[in-house]
């Protein structure tokens, strides 16, 4: 019955609707990171409430708490007039909180109707699956939302957008009262987006509350009744959707404490003539499109953009990990375009992947074996010199200050920062000239972060080429000499030293500035 927000922080929506959700003081911390801090949020029936923020602002954590995947440390969730400290996934679904993720989870071999009612099937009186009532109900549900799909169509025949819509219908079939959408338009064309946004308005008109998360400000302005900005886990503000000034919104998304910045020491010019790396027309259909840029030796070239913009895919292509449709890589004028990682390593490339546990390290093996693996790939002959190996590995472990009781320790027992240093040690022993970093400090403590920054700076000052994909704004702005921004698989612009700012990076990443 207490449907009004306490303290009346937010302007009450014009139409007086039932309050579905009130979140107060939501806090969630992970080791070393505050993912959400004292966040307030509410949602009324029939409202579309958008949530915006950079990568890592806390949006995903927020959804996970709401869908019951994570338990908050503090705070209350008031859902339909009952108060909860935390939810289980089952509870969230039973209460009518339905979450639709970027890639909707549907069974390709089943029909639309079967997918919609998967897990809560219509049964006949004798306990068998009731095909006709399933199809009838699916059709009725879709018609009520203005969707004309045939429920007997097999899902694998649908386009991404159509699947996304079926995913939403499936969520609604379980009596959803709150619909959470996480980046539903990430892989859709503009006409498909329009269709989806139209659908959202129809759903909202059925008195469902919608929480809509998107990187695309245009859509947010178009569809949002209210817009809440999250930054570094905190709620910055909540605006009326129709009246908000977009410049203000962008500023609110990026503004940040200066103390978080790492101050990169100015690099002293290298004695040798710097060698340039030229990336020419790198293309993989549907992923990365005609990327061309040049990096000078001694330079740190940052690559910014939103998640899904094709940044990881680009560095994977450069390392010869995936097959490209076009593109050449020239180092000092020489064509070194690799087609396999081994080929890339031989040409002095290395890739520090974004997920070190999954793709960077062999966790069950020792520090020694992990550090030596790439170095050994470059050596001829079938045998290893174990004594020499011990010496080389011990030296680099000492030099990078990898904290481990022994080089025989399994890497799985090391901290995140030390694991990342093991990855770096591996590549430093190959004498690589071109370092491709993908999210170099994700999930790493502050101390190790600084050490990794120092190492990157020293690599650059030795005339090597450093390319760094990063979603960490302070990292990107303080470490990079130039920043290339990717959006939708293209490099939309390159910011020169004087132009680098969080506002500029973000505006280009989300396409707020049209060139």
């Amino acid at each position, binding site marked *: 019955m207490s449907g009004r927000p306490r303290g009346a922080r937010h302007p009450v929506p014009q139409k007086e609707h039932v309050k579905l959700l009130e979140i107060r003081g939501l806090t969630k911390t992970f080791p070393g990171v505050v993912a959400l801090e004292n966040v307030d949020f509410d949602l009324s029936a029939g409202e579309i409430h958008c949530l915006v923020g950079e990568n890592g602002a806390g949006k995903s954590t927020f959804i996970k708490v709401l869908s019951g995947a994570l338990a908050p440390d503090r705070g209350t969730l008031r859902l339909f007039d009952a108060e909860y400290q935390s939810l289980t996934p089952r509870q969230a679904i039973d209460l009518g909180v339905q979450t639709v993720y970027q890639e909707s989870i549907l069974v390709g071999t089943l029909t639309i109707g079967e997918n919609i009612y998967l897990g809560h099937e219509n049964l006949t009186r004798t306990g068998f699956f009731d095909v006709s009532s399933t199809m009838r109900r699916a059709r009725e549900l879709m018609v009520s939302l203005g969707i004309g799909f045939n429920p007997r169509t097999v899902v694998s025949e649908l386009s991404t957008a159509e699947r996304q819509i079926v995913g939403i219908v499936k969520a609604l079939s379980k009596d959803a009262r709150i619909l959470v959408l996480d980046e539903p338009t990430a892989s859709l064309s503009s006409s498909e987006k329009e269709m989806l946004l139209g659908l959202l308005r129809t759903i909202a008109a059925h008195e469902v509350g919608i929480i809509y998360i998107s990187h695309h400000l245009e859509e947010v302005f178009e569809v949002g009744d209210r817009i809440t900005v999250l930054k570094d886990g905190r709620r910055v503000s909540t605006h009326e959707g129709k009246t908000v000034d977009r410049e203000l919104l962008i500023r609110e998304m990026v503004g940040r404490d200066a103390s978080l910045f790492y101050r990169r020491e100015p690099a002293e010019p290298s004695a040798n003539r710097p060698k340039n790396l030229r990336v020419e027309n790198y293309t993989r259909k549907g992923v990365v499109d005609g990327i061309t840029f040049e990096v000078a030796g001694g330079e740190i070239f940052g690559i910014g953009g939103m998640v899904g913009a094709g940044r990881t895919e680009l560095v994977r292509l450069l390392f010869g990990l995936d097959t490209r449709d076009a593109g050449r890589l020239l180092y000092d004028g020489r064509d070194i375009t690799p087609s396999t990682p081994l080929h890339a390593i031989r040409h002095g490339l290395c890739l520090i992947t974004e997920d070190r546990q999954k793709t960077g390290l062999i966790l069950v093996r020792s520090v020694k074996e992990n550090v*030596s693996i790439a170095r050994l790939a470059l050596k001829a002959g079938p045998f290893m010199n174990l004594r020499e190996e011990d010496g080389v590995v011990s030296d680099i472990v*000492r030099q990078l200050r990898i904290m481990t009781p022994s080089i025989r320790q399994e890497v799985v*027992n090391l901290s995140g920062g030390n694991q990342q240093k093991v990855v770096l040690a591996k590549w430093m022993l190959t004498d690589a000239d071109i370092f491709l970093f993908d999210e170099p400090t994700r999930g790493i403590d502050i101390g190790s972060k600084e050490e990794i920054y120092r190492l990157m700076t020293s690599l650059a000052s030795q005339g090597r080429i450093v390319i760094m994909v990063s979603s960490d704004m302070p990292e990107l702005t303080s470490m990079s000499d130039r920043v290339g921004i990717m959006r939708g698989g293209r490099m939309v612009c390159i910011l020169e030293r004087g132009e680098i700012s969080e506002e500029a990076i973000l505006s280009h990443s989300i396409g707020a500035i049209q060139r």
Partner: protein
Amino acid sequence: MSEPQPRVMVAPKRAGGLRKIFSNQTLFLAILIVILSGITTALNPAFLTVGNILNVLNQISVPAIVSAGAALVMISGNFDISVGAMIGLSTTTAALLVVEGHPLQSSILIGFLICVACGLANGIIISKTRTPSFIMTLAMLSIYHGISLITTGGITKSLAGTFAGLGRGATLGVPNPILVCFAVYVVLYLFLRYTKLGRRIFAVGGNEEAAYLSGVNTDRAKIMVYIMNGALVGLGAVVLLSRLGAALPSTGSGMELRAIAAVVIGGVPLTGGKGSAIGVFLGVVLMGLISNMLNLLNISAYYQEVVIGLIIAIAVIVSNLGKLLRK
């Protein structure tokens, strides 16, 4: 420039105690073997005689050679369950050639090479088509077994005692199969420790993607693993043929599962990435010991099957306790 840094213990491990025993599979197996030997000796003093120990080792030599191959395959994170059918195909072919009057040496060599070729085929198919090795070698099992049924018509082919030296003879009082088996394990130990390929097999099993990203040709490593497995199976098949003096398509059937069991007991996880030659050898010894013990205690062969199954299950559970305790 860098001042000495204290080596901080990241994950303090409590030394000694149960945890250490369970986390060290080799030590655990050695202790288990000693205890079982003690019990058997107490019940039947005939156990602890040179004759019986040589007998046990002789019995396990062929399974041990085959298990060495299975260990390589499983460390790389794969399986090969076509091993028994490979043995059937290779022994029957060799025997058939001898029966048809071909020279003994070349017939035996062809038998050996058939296993190498089967291994090569398994390796290429699995690595190039990126199919799960378990199901793919199941298919190959059927093919190899079928071929040997076709060529022999399902009838036993006898060598008529022409090739008994390797399987039945002895050198300086030690049965030849034991010598072959020891040689295999010494080479396996050296291979895993000192060669690049040995190191890479662990890497591929530990994390294939990370290994590939670090410049390891993972396809080639897998193919090499299957070729080596084929060679070891071929060696085992030749020793077995020599000992039996005759071959059937079903010769060697079931060997693959015993080998997998021994390798797992010997400390290679089903996910791969870990293991040692000594551990696998002790795993085979443990299994041979159990079967010998049951014989000495006059337990019927039918019950023996059940008991062996139970002991494998217990050994695998116990060897996993280390992991459970760590959680």
